[in-house]
């Protein structure tokens, strides 16, 4: 039940965000500090989510050449930087993880 309430609330929230300026054009203005801050929101939130996925193992720092997720993630960062392509980044990162896991296990 809670999952459904969360989904509906998240849907309303997302829709309200999309509708905001379209519906109230000219009546609301974005404060300039907020406009400047919004630019940083996507990279900041997404990085805060994926960094622990690469650097932590069960909540503990895992800095080692045995950390397949860290190595595959670093390769994916290079691929994303050079190609700017979502599909290449995911496919190459995933293949790297599988190969590394195969050798480390």
């Amino acid at each position, binding site marked *: 039940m809670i999952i459904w309430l969360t989904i509906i609330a998240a849907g309303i929230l997302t829709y309200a965000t999309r509708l905001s300026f379209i519906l109230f054009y000219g009546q609301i203005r974005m404060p300039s500090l907020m406009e400047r801050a919004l630019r940083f929101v996507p990279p900041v939130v997404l990085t805060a989510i994926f960094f622990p996925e690469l650097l932590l193992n069960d909540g503990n720092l895992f800095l080692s050449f045995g950390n397949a997720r860290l190595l595959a993630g670093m390769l994916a960062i290079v691929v994303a930087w050079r190609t700017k392509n979502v599909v290449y*980044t995911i496919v190459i*990162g995933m293949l790297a993880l599988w190969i590394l896991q195969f050798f480390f296990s």
Partner: protein
Amino acid sequence: MHANKSYQVLHPARNEFFSGIIAELPLMVGVIPFGMIYGILAISVGVPANAAQAMSAIIFAGSSQFVSAQLFGLSVPAIINLFTVGVINLRHALYSASIAPYLQKLPTRWKWVLAYLLTDEAYAVSIIHYQQEGDDRIKHWFFLGSGLTLWTTWQLSTAAGIYLGASVPASWSLDFTLALTFIALVVPAIKDRASLGAALAAGLVAVALFNLPLKSGLLAASLIGILVGLLLEGKS
């Protein structure tokens, strides 16, 4: 007479609609695997199939669905899940502000429909179209065409992923596609020192504070990251 008149009005609108579909199609190369991976991931972390599909229809925002499904899997409190979705989707306020001037003369029902279809991909092609020459009175048909193309593709590809999801074993580590997707979205978006500093600060703080209760480290990391970005931007 009446039929002839409506033909003249409808025909350019129909052209706009199909132009919107055609402009959106190349983006589907990225959207289809993304949708399928989302479906597979949602099932693999334990989200029920109907809820996973409902997220695609109700939230309709890929990266936030990824994170939300992941957080459901970790049994994170609903309020944190909701907050995270809200933060990730804040960028849509920028799209809304940017495209709003072009939609002002439309009837309100059009605004409600187009706002629902305002995704990264539909915004990207529609805003370019609005900024080009042409008849601004019918360009909302282009937006509608691109938006519906994305919507349909997203629903079908997530359904395919959900269908496949149950047959994918955990040893495939498909949850890692979340981190990879974020890398693919973040890295090209880092264009200056300020955004690089903001992302690095947020990532490192998130690692340091990972074990705080209720995933509150994510909130702290985001705020610190934004602050670092604003400070670096002010300097340069």
